[in-house]
């Protein structure tokens, strides 16, 4: 125990406090069943890699080359990984902002010499750490499985972790911001309803011209919403020229701005929130 006098009173720096709360929260998030369910589904998905690269595929009487298979496999595979990590991210957010949110231990932590902003970022940081962990695991396993079954060492795949984590950061920060106003199940429902809309509109914007053999699709208002689909297109362009679209940098900037907005607005709101 430290000495019982005002001059001997300690306390840790806000960064250290935030890090310690995030570490605890990440441990709590990873301890839940969601991680094991996510990993089990991921394993099933990776078994599909074997099927795709060990069998013979014929299209219009012509055998599909290894190279063509790889292009489609990357597109479909990365999309499935992103779907899984997004679902895992939402599950973590729902759980961390569920029954015990701002009650029980959360209140005890807030009764420590910790500012509200530090608690807010610490709590969110814990959820982010858990979903980043899952993202790294999933992309790494994807790369290993591809190498194992097809003999292709596409180590550039590991770059996909960066855009995937950026998208997850946007998802988690927006979830925590919306959670200041709405229940966790409602926020989950909004995310589940809006994500397909974002994907469809963004992917049509970036790839629609290819299908219609025209110039780029006209800019429309959905592109102002968080461009999760645009970020997806950017990520695919990182590893395969077939998917590359120069304009996807806009999606990266868009997601960055949404993260910034969600973090600032969420922390400001949380400072005055009734507990």
């Amino acid at each position: 125990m430290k000495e019982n006098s005002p001059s001997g009173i300690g306390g840790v720096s806000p960064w250290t406090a935030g890090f310690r709360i995030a570490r605890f929260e990440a441990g709590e998030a990873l301890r839940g069943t969601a991680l094991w369910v996510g990993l089990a589904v991921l394993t099933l998905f990776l078994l599909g890699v074997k099927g795709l690269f060990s069998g013979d595929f014929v299209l219009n009487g012509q055998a599909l080359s290894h190279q063509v298979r790889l292009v489609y496999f990357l597109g479909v595979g990365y999309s499935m990984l992103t779907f899984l990590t997004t679902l895992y991210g939402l599950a973590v957010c729902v759980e961390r902002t569920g029954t015990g949110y701002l009650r029980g231990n959360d209140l005890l932590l807030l009764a420590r010499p910790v500012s509200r902003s530090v608690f807010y970022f610490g709590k969110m940081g814990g959820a982010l750490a858990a979903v980043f962990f899952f993202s790294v695991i999933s992309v790494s396993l994807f790369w290993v499985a591809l190498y194992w079954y097809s003999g292709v060492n596409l180590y550039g795949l590991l770059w996909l972790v960066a855009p995937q984590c950026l998208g997850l950061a946007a998802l988690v920060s927006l979830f925590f911001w919306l959670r200041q106003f709405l229940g966790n199940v409602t926020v989950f429902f909004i995310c589940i309803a809006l994500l397909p809309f974002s994907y469809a509109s963004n992917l049509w914007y970036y790839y629609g011209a290819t299908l219609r053999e025209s110039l780029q699709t006209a800019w429309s208002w959905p592109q102002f919403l968080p461009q999760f689909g645009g970020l997806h297109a950017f990520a695919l362009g990182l590893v395969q020229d077939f998917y590359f679209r120069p304009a996807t940098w806009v999606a990266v900037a868009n997601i960055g701005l949404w993260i910034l907005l969600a973090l600032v607005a969420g922390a400001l709101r949380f400072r005055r929130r009734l507990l």
Partner: protein
Amino acid sequence: MEAALECRQLVLSYPRGEQVGPISLEVPRGVCAALIGPNGAGKSSLISMLLGLRPPTSGQAFLFGVETSAAEARIGTGYVQESVELPPNSRALSLLRVHASLCLGEESQAYQNPSGYLQEFGEGLAGKRLGAFSKGMRQRLALALAMLDARRLLILDEPNNGLDPAGIAMLRRKILELKKSGVTVLLSTHRLAEIPTLADLVFVMHKGKLVGSSSIDAFADLDALEDYFLKLTP
């Protein structure tokens, strides 16, 4: 020297029109103040404002001269909430460690040897998942967490909830020890029988207002305290 705990015209308005306050009170350093009142009197709301957990609608609250909206005001403060809900998948040791790391640092004895620290509050707290804890065990753990850093102030909201007689005796002993070492204690309780042994001051709340305050010396016995309470909270 500033009071340990001070409220100036503190008001908390709820969206549905209910209101706690205005409340003005002062608790000097090193004393134990009992906060009593019927259910729904506003005791827990007052405690929440004192800890900075609920920003007051108007007025100010101070802990050791620092406004409670500042995190520094809560340095050296321990708190036990009315109903203890702890994360069911956690273990007591990891919970204790995060609290110890926040208020005492990772070099502290409670962080390095959490099992040893928990032993003081009861057997079997270190092993099980919190979901498997009984109400009494949860309460003991909550007390352990609160007393980790109660160097200046300990705020207890119904701390006897779920405790067995041995637990109640342990709590009484701990409060008296802390009081002896100069720690200020704010005890919100419905158990009037505990008050003459522990408290120096009594505050009575009713329908969101502070309706009475007195030194414990003003009461000849427990019956006198009960009469005072019943007279103020009809």
